[in-house]
């Protein structure tokens, strides 16, 4: 029997279990560092001053910390997301013009639950319901670019101002990129079957929307989300923390400041070029970002890196190729990349 199946069926039962879980989580988070101190130094008797021991301590502590943060953030985001569906989003966007529509679409793109395998049905559904293609693209760009888990991790690691900058930059890129692409008359680069879809989709619109979910079901969906995402990201997390630890412990403190610091005009460019093929997720990128920030890499460069890691992915491009022709896919990638690079340079200019 899994935890998910053991959830109580009543509302008050769910409340009690949730309160206990919050307490256990907060306790584990607060005791994390002391627990590893006790285990490695007091119990096993390792020397805290040895470099390899302190690296091991960092690895265990940081892995636990990020795993706890991820669990909490994914669960909260997963439960909140049960309140908004993509079908509801489409209803909100239907009949909106470009401009206002792009702004709304970018905001909804952040909030709406959305797995990259749904990019194609979502695209078809939006366009079929009469949402302009540029507005639809704003939605599709914002969704991975402003990743809620990345927001949560940035907030807990660097503070709310950096998290807000990340959100603002991502929304701006999605709004502007969608608007620019919409202006380019991209209909000719969309596969014709998409544009023929409207009658069918309209007739069935709203089918399958689960309007009322019980609290148990929402909690269960949150837990399933945690299990699924953690199950997928743990290798990236371990590699990210290990690399972060190596940078933290062994790379001289002025190395990155000298090579990728604010005075290197190519710093942001290099970060984006490195970030795109590294496509993993925020969990793996964050420990790296944190270690690089400690070594003097400017925040604009790091945010650009974070965005390029989460935003542009080859698997999603291959999926989108079913509905978008190559010139539009190329334009999409180019506009988003240029946006990310511009944001990196802008933040570096503002923050230094």
């Amino acid at each position: 029997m899994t935890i998910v199946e053991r959830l109580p069926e009543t509302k008050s039962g769910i409340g009690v279990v949730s309160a206990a879980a919050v307490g256990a989580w907060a306790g584990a988070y607060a005791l994390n560092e002391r627990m590893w101190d006790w285990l490695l130094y007091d119990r096993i008797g390792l020397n805290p001053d040895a470099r390899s021991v302190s690296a091991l301590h960092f690895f265990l502590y940081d892995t636990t910390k990020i795993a706890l943060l991820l669990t909490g953030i994914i669960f909260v985001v997963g439960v909140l997301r049960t309140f908004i569906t993509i079908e509801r989003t489409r209803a909100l966007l239907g009949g909106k013009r470009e401009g206002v529509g792009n702004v709304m679409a970018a905001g909804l793109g952040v909030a709406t639950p959305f797995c990259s395998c749904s990019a194609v049905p979502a695209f078809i559904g939006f366009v079929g319901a009469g949402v302009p293609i540029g507005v639809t693209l704003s939605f599709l760009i914002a969704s991975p670019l402003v990743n809620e888990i990345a927001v949560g991790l940035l907030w807990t690691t660097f503070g709310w101002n950096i998290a807000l900058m990340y959100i603002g930059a991502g929304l701006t890129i999605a709004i502007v990129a969608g608007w620019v692409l919409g202006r380019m008359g991209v209909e000719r680069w969309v596969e014709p079957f998409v544009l023929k879809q409207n009658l069918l989709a309209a007739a069935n619109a709203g089918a399958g929307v689960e309007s009322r979910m019980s609290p148990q079901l929402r909690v269960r969906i949150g837990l399933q989300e945690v299990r699924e995402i953690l199950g997928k990201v743990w290798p990236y997390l371990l590699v990210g923390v290990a690399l972060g630890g190596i940078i933290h412990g062994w790379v001289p403190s002025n190395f990155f400041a000298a090579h990728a610091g604010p005075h290197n005009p190519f710093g942001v460019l290099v970060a984006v070029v490195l970030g795109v093929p590294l496509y993993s997720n925020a969990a793996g990128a964050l420990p790296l970002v944190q270690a690089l920030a400690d070594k003097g890499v400017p925040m604009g460069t790091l945010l650009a890196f974070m965005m390029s890691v989460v935003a542009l992915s080859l698997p999603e491009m291959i999926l989108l190729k079913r509905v978008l022709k190559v010139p539009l896919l190329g334009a999409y990638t180019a506009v988003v990349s240029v946006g990310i690079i511009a944001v990196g340079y802008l933040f570096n200019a503002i923050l230094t």
Partner: protein
Amino acid sequence: MIIKVLGSGCANCVRLEANVKEALAASGIVDATVEKVTDYADIAAYGIMSTPGLVVDERVLVSGRVPDAAEVAQLIASAR
């Protein structure tokens, strides 16, 4: 009974199909056929935009998430 799993073939759709088969076996239902709908135009015709989707006798029961086998069994039972 005709059960359809809508989805392009990503990991979620594969898991949903496995859960459906498990649910059918657990409930002892033998008169059901399970079909996969992978064509995007056909998926869109059901009016859903997030995959995977679970359709029982042409009624969309779930979209955009993977219910586990126990929940699928409940859904199928209530749809009969």
